């Protein structure tokens, strides 16, 4: 059962990621990334991380991807066109990514035996209660620092995305300036 669920949702993940790679229009890539993130939430559940599964759905496929689709629609992003730079990236990008995957897979397969199997017994399920005990006791300072980080990010985002109005004396016609 566990294995079947892993292969179904792992397959969804890989299919969504490949769709992100192959689609030309950004909105299709964004929607396939939502598929990847939601299937990853199921995989987190299969690994006994129930709080992270909920946070993955709420934060990633909820908040962040809505922000992405919002920006895509706001900027009216069109299909990307092939340019000279993309041809060089095709020549270098695919072999590089394939080599990276080969190295990682080799290491994981070689050392996979010593890692053992996923244990989904109640003793290894990490609930919100256990997670919050560690987070609010041992790691309280980093947690508070992240809240400050979020605040700074919000202020930075507002400052960056604000529409800068051109200075008044430049926008007026020169003739009216004389009066």
């Amino acid at each position, binding site marked *: 059962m566990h294995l079947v669920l892993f292969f179904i949702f792992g397959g969804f*993940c*890989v299919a969504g*990621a*490949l769709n*992100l790679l192959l689609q030309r229009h*950004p909105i299709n*890539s*964004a929607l396939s*990334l939502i598929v*990847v*993130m939601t299937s*990853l939430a199921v*995989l*987190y559940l*299969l*690994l*006994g*991380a129930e*709080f*992270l599964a909920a*946070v993955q759905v709420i*934060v990633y496929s909820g*908040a*962040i991807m809505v*922000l*992405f689709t919002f920006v895509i629609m706001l*900027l009216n*992003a069109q299909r*990307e066109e*092939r340019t000279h*730079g993309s041809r060089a*990236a095709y020549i*270098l*990008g*695919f072999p*590089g*990514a*394939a080599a*990276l*995957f080969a190295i*990682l*897979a080799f290491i*994981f*397969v070689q050392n*996979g035996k010593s*890692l053992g*199997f*996923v*244990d989904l017994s109640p*003793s*290894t399920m*990490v609930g919100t209660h256990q*997670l919050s005990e*560690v987070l609010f006791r041992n790691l309280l300072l980093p947690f508070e620092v992240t809240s400050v980080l*979020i605040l700074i*990010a919000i202020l*930075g985002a507002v*400052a*960056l*995305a604000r529409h800068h109005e051109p200075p008044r004396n430049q926008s007026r016609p020169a003739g009216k300036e004389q009066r």
Partner: protein
Amino acid sequence: MVPIAYYLILSAILFSIGVGAFLIKRNIITIFMSIELMLNAVNLSFVAFANYWNQINHQFSGQIFVFFVMVVAAAEAAVGLAIIIALFRARKTLNVDQVDLMKL
């Protein structure tokens, strides 16, 4: 029973696809989305290792780290998309090949 190595290999697949998309895509929003895909792949391997570590000595620091990665990713997405909007206002394009000058 699923070996933990399966999850790690899935994570490696997603990360490599993210790297490939980062190099090949020309639209700046799609490049940003492939960064998010790479972050998600690393999160998956963190959760897999947290499960392994939890079996040995009942610690789950990997899940805490995933939580912090999500927070930083949310902050990064907000700032990055604001930068993309500012860039689009200045250049009227989203193609990274046409954004190669530091000053107009």
